[in-house]
């Protein structure tokens, strides 16, 4: 039997007698595991932090903003401002393959005066299609969001961000109330919220058709945004290229003119971070494995010394009838018990620090919720114990096979 009471008592006797040796072995194991846990935890902390940055918009989205031409084209001078219209939106929507959700944007920047009774504030206004919610990952806090019928019927409705609601309505319910945007009354149909960023909380969303009509936009739009579904990076690039080609043909600019359109491809950016994560992960594992190896070397070293120190004792045991296997078994069981116990201590300490540290730390944007991959930690302990076993086996077997007379001569 691997763990009988008798053997445990034999081991307890040896451990109690050799406190320092036991402590050193234990410490090197605990430290190795502790450091590994901290590393893994910080790694996930950074990853979570960066991922949170992506929460406020769809990562598979492509945003197209107007630019200014920088190359002459078909007799046209450079420096021309590109304009989009509703037709561009319709054209892209109907002809570009792979589009999942699409919205145009019509901006009313620069702090529009919004009033409710005697409360007022200056806010930014974004007019859009219903699909906008998927691109901005808008969360509904109350009521409803802008829908197709609002756009079709050119309704004077709006949703307001939670901060807008707080400022204008305080504790009062905003639903169904009328606010005035630059003097024009709009009915509030919903309150929206956003997880990733605070900015949309200070925005008002209007149906794009209403804003164009009421605020003199005609058929102009300022931006096109769409999601690419489950498109790969390659497919996303292809769609980006196609959008550029289509708009170049419609707006008469050189396809190669990078400045005519400002295109932001979320997939590409996301991919960059994904790559960053994998480099960080590789980095952490390299250091982690290094730490573990240092622990293993420590354990092996101490096992060697321990067995050497005990040669005489093991010789006495042999003279009294210990079989080689019982000697190996005794030495290895001791090492397994010490390594797994101290590994556990290191694990608990590491997890403790990871759990407690965030509440005592200043908030860092790119470092959130450090967590430990428990499986990896347990794996590391098993690895350490196994390494201790292998490391202890060679000297243990040597001690077990030495002639008792030689072992007894050892002082």
């Amino acid at each position: 039997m691997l763990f009988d009471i008798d053997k445990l008592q034999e081991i307890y006797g040896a451990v109690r007698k050799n406190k320092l040796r036991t402590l050193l072995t234990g410490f090197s194991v605990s430290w190795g595991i502790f450091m590994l846990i901290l590393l893994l935890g910080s790694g996930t902390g950074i990853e979570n932090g960066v991922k949170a940055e992506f929460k406020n918009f769809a990562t598979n989205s492509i945003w197209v903003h107007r630019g200014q031409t920088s190359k002459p084209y078909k007799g046209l001078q450079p420096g021309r401002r590109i304009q989009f219209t509703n037709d561009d939106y319709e054209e892209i929507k109907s002809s570009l393959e792979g589009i999942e959700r699409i919205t145009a944007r019509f901006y009313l920047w620069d702090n529009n005066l919004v009033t409710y009774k005697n409360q007022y504030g200056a806010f930014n206004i974004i007019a859009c299609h219903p699909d906008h919610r998927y691109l901005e990952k808008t969360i509904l806090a109350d009521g409803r969001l802008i829908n197709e019928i609002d756009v079709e019927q050119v309704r004077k409705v709006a949703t307001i961000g939670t901060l807008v609601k707080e400022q204008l309505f305080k504790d009062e319910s905003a639903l169904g109330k009328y606010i005035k945007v630059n003097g024009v009354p709009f009915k509030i149909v919903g309150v929206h919220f956003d997880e990733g960023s605070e900015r949309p909380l200070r925005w008002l969303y209007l149906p794009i058709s209403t804003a164009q009509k009421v605020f003199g936009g005609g058929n102009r739009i300022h931006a096109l945004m769409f999601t690419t579904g489950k498109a790969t990076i390659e497919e996303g690039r292809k769609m980006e290229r196609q959008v550029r080609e289509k708009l170049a043909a419609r707006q008469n600019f050189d396809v190669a003119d990078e400045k005519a359109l400002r295109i932001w491809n979320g997939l590409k950016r996301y991919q960059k971070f994904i790559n960053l994560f994998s480099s960080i992960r590789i980095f952490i594992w390299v250091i982690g494995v290094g730490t573990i190896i240092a622990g293993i070397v420590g354990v092996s070293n101490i096992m060697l010394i321990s067995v050497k120190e005990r040669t005489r004792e093991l010789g006495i045991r042999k003279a009294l009838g210990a079989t080689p296997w019982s000697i190996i078994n005794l030495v290895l069981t001791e090492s397994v018990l010490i390594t797994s116990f101290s590994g556990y201590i290191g694990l608990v300490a590491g997890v403790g620090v990871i759990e407690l540290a965030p509440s005592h730390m200043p908030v860092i944007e790119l470092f959130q919720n450090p967590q430990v991959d428990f499986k990896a930690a347990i794996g590391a302990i098993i690895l350490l114990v196994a390494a201790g076993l292998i490391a202890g086996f060679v000297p243990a077997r040597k001690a077990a096979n030495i002639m008792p007379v030689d072992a007894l001569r050892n002082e």
Partner: protein
Amino acid sequence: MIKLKNLHKTYATGSNELRVLKGIDLNISAGELVSIMGPSGSGKSTLLNIIGLLDTFDSGEYLLDNQIIKRMGERQAAYFRNKFFGFIFQAFNLISFKSAVENVALPLYYQNIRRRKRNTIALEYLDKMGMRDWADHLPGELSGGQQQRVAIARAMISEPKVILADEPTGALDTDTSYEMMDLLKTINQKGVTVIIVTHEHDISAKTARTIRLTDGIIDNHEGL
């Protein structure tokens, strides 16, 4: 019980070979009380260790209880050391971090006897050696004579057929040495074969038969 024929043993020390035993012929029957005498370096301890299976030999024949001992497996050797022999050493060889009773009980641990039972038996043997009151003391807290009594109790606990004592009185004063010899004689009278290695004449004089060893050979073939 123990038959040696033309036994040779050589130690390799660096490039030199040290021939320790140069053809030992020896018969020891059951129930004998034998001493092996000789100056230091004569090979007497080596001979005892080979008899007790603590060491190997190069050539010759060793019959133990009519079994041929030649390159015996370690497992089997362990069994013999545990059941057949009891060892008493000059340096006592008690395990320093174990109490007297735990030291005495250790051979029974290797017979898979339960802890409580083997400690009870160990206490009996300590009692026989007059050491019961020191049962919970560590070896370091005992005098040389007391330690050797504990060692004898340990050698006796597995009820061996042969007691092998290597200079058992070497670290003890004269009075204590004679007490030890009386103990060993008592053990012998109960039918246990006792073989004592010593270089002291007064010790060997207390045994029934003395085998003299010089330079790895038995003088006058008196061993036969």
